[in-house]
């Protein structure tokens, strides 16, 4: 799960989304095709080319007030069309920790 924090070259190998954390509370969010943010991955704009990725990332980073640390993350598109995280790191960001919390939510 190489950290995407040092993502410099924008090159995508498959369907991807732009994700970040919401500035005021840190919640995981995804860039939507409506130029906004959603905490629901199914709302995310899916990008498939490096040009699309570059454009969506630039738009996301420009929203410095709403989001922090935007980067491109891989996703899988299931046959049903459902968007799934493309690696364990993103799975954990979406679903939460893989352990039982000391105090159940």
């Amino acid at each position, binding site marked *: *799960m*190489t*950290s995407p*924090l040092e993502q410099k070259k924008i090159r995508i190998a498959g369907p991807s989304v732009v994700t970040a*954390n919401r*500035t*005021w*509370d*840190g*919640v*995981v969010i995804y860039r939507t095709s409506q130029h906004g943010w959603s905490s629901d991955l199914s709302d995310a704009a899916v990008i498939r080319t490096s040009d699309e990725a570059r454009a969506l990332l630039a738009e996301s980073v420009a929203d*410095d*007030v709403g989001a*922090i*640390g935007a980067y491109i993350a891989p996703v899988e598109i299931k046959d049903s069309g459902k968007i799934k995280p493309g*690696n*364990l*790191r993103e799975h*954990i*960001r979406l679903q*939460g*920790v*893989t*352990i039982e*919390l*000391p*105090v159940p*939510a």
Partner: protein
Amino acid sequence: MYAYDELDRTLINERVSEFRDQVKRRLSGELTEDEFKMLRLQNGVYLQLHAYMFRVAIPYGTLSSKQLRRLAHVARRYDRGYGHFTTRQNIQFNWIKLAELPDALADLADVGIHAMQTSGNNTRNVTSDQWAGVAPGEIADPRIWSELIRQYTTLHPEFSFLPRKFKFAITASAHDRAAIKVHDIGLRLYKNAEGETGFEVLVGGGLGRTPFIGKTIKPFVHGRDLLSYVEAILRVYNQYGRRDNIYKARIKILVHELGIEKFAQEVEDEWQQMRATDTALTLDDAMIEDIRSRFSYPAYEKLPHMPDELKKAAHDAHFEAWRKNSVAPHKVSGYAIVTLSLKPVGGPPGDATADQMDAVADLADKYSFGEIRVGHEQNLALPHVARRDLPALWKALDKIDLATPNVNLITDIIACPGLDYCSLANARSIPIAQELTRRFANHDTANLIGRLHINISGCINACGHHHVGHIGILGVEKNGEEFYQITIGGRADENAEVGTLIGPAVPYGEVADVIEDIVEAYLALRAQPDELFVDTVKRLGVEPFRERVYATR
């Protein structure tokens, strides 16, 4: 306990006001994230996977019951009802909202707690022996010197804009519980042949990507000269330390590249110049005494070493199992130091719920003069417990799941938060620790194995100190999968060593089996039952263990 004066309180409160304004400006867009990042880091605020993480300093690991209750309040009010005690005597809250952080900081400031020096390229929380002031045979209380360094370096420009973060640790005991040899500067307080109290100064220790054991730069520095000497070290570091490459910016790299002799000479030249130009601060006895006087010590009673309560409880095997591993001798007869394991079977190492923190605060008031300690092994301690109270304390701890009798045993695992929380991690740490605690949950087995420290880090930054674990486990990524490198033979005490890699990394699902193989090999190979795991590795090297692990893999 150390009592803050008006200056300390003013500084902390001003810092809260300043940060409140900074957060307000960030949320309004007046400050960009680039502008804000350093400001939030200077107040212990990181961005992790799911949320902001708030790291709070517990200088030299000492807390009052009032302060612990306030930490519980922060966990409950602003987070998700628990906190994580770290390997550097801090506590971290993992789910905090930026908008609420100024209020959390203000609530902490009310009881003299802050988040200064918990992040950024400055001097970090000065750590010390968690048994400071109560350990038998200690030369003097090292926290006095920790506090002096804390005060001197806080906001001091020479210590605030360094090439990289900078960590001090201090011990005053022959047995090093503060891991001073793996810190940027390690200080060992001792008395020289003339009976003067001073420090052996070590420099250039550290873990992370490039682990080094610290080297002695000066065998003896008198206490009055300590601050000027460490300032000379920092001046040389500021002058020559690399700022162009984050991976080569720590002082350990500079010491390694210059060589300890050359580095020591540079520091000596700088120090002598400071002395010649009257810019070297010399502490007079009154200054030291002023700090010393603000540490309060309990009014101990004269109590028997073996009270009736203890004799009676000795018949209870469960109590005895706990006592043997959790209770340590105290400098005052009739008292004991009690370690509270934050490593329950199947639990995340170092986590404590708000309810547990409140309960420990109550127990500290009842049995430990209202004082609690936090150790780098991610456990708590009650430093002043009358031995007659041990049975009652044990029962009370058992009710809140803090009497696991595994201190210093194989399930007393040190682990970083790993990929479950951390944005830098490559692999998970906590589930590995949980599986190992289940695998070795049988107390008789753990006792048979004896003292064995497992340390787990989820990435090469080594927050779980895996390099110095008797068994170290490092999470790495291979083609998108979690793998783990295993080292053995590391240790963080006065004989500190970096562990040796035993072979190729193993997948997530095999880690517990591999550790079990290593332990079985050790039990078969040890010369006698009391030969510790690290001593067996030292005697035989890693080859027999490597053979055992990889023969069938």
